[in-house]
């Protein structure tokens, strides 16, 4: 189950909203400053969907990830189940 933590600050709100709009994606309440996004399937975000400029896009995982990054290009981010080992 891929999961990411996102700091609950205004600049990351686009990512949170993008997650809330996706079926099957769980978005927690804010707990001690962090919002946790998780899914039983792959987590997929697009930069345009988040409304992010490149600088913000490339820092949006800084809250931490539990999973494996399968794609993290200029426009698409895909995080899957973590790989054992």
């Amino acid at each position: 189950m891929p999961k990411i933590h996102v700091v609950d600050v205004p600049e990351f709100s686009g990512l949170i909203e993008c997650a809330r709009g996706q079926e099957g994606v769980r978005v927690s309440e804010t707990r001690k400053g962090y919002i946790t996004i998780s899914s039983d399937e792959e987590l997929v975000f697009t930069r345009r969907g988040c409304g992010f400029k490149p600088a913000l896009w490339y820092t949006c995982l800084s809250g931490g990830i539990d999973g494996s990054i399968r794609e993290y290009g200029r426009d698409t981010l895909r995080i899957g189940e973590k790989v054992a080992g």
Partner: protein
Amino acid sequence: MLTNADAKVQGPAIETAVALKGVHHTARPTWKLKETVHFYRDVLELKLCHAICARGWGPDDHPDFIHFFFESGQGSTIAFFYYLQTAQPVDNVPQGSFVYNSVHTAWRVDTREELLAWKEKLEGKGFEVMQVPHEILESIYVTDPNGYAVEIAWQTRAMNAYDEVDARLTLEAAISIENETGDRVQAIDDIWKRKARMVDAYLAESE
């Protein structure tokens, strides 16, 4: 006159709080005197407010120099050293590279309108200006005649307690990887993965 030994015995008469109160000056060397004065005084229109013109500075091998300052707001100044009879050393870090540009100072403005006004002013004087929206900063960059990156930045929001916790966990994650591997961190993913576990633990702690 008190000696250091006396001071140790007597201790300070009054405890004075130790705190920093913002920037007094940043200082960098210059080998382009008139160009630097022109850029900071005439282009940026900062007041040339102080200069020291000195013969050496104590040690025999210290060259004579001019140390001059431009006002940069809130009591801060931008300072330069112009050393006489001193050749500019060859810099091992290529000018314009990201490592070279990492050594810079960002000067604060209060509003986005002010930031854009600076951009317009500099572009109007023929300078190339790069504008970048970061995380909590929106910045413009211009290169001075020395090749130094000058950043002017507007902070979009105040930093808060969440930022503080998150910064601590990020650095603890990276340092713990260094400690375990005995090496520098090799992959940003490793920090993010380590940090997720640390955030899990932090969230599991009682409030």
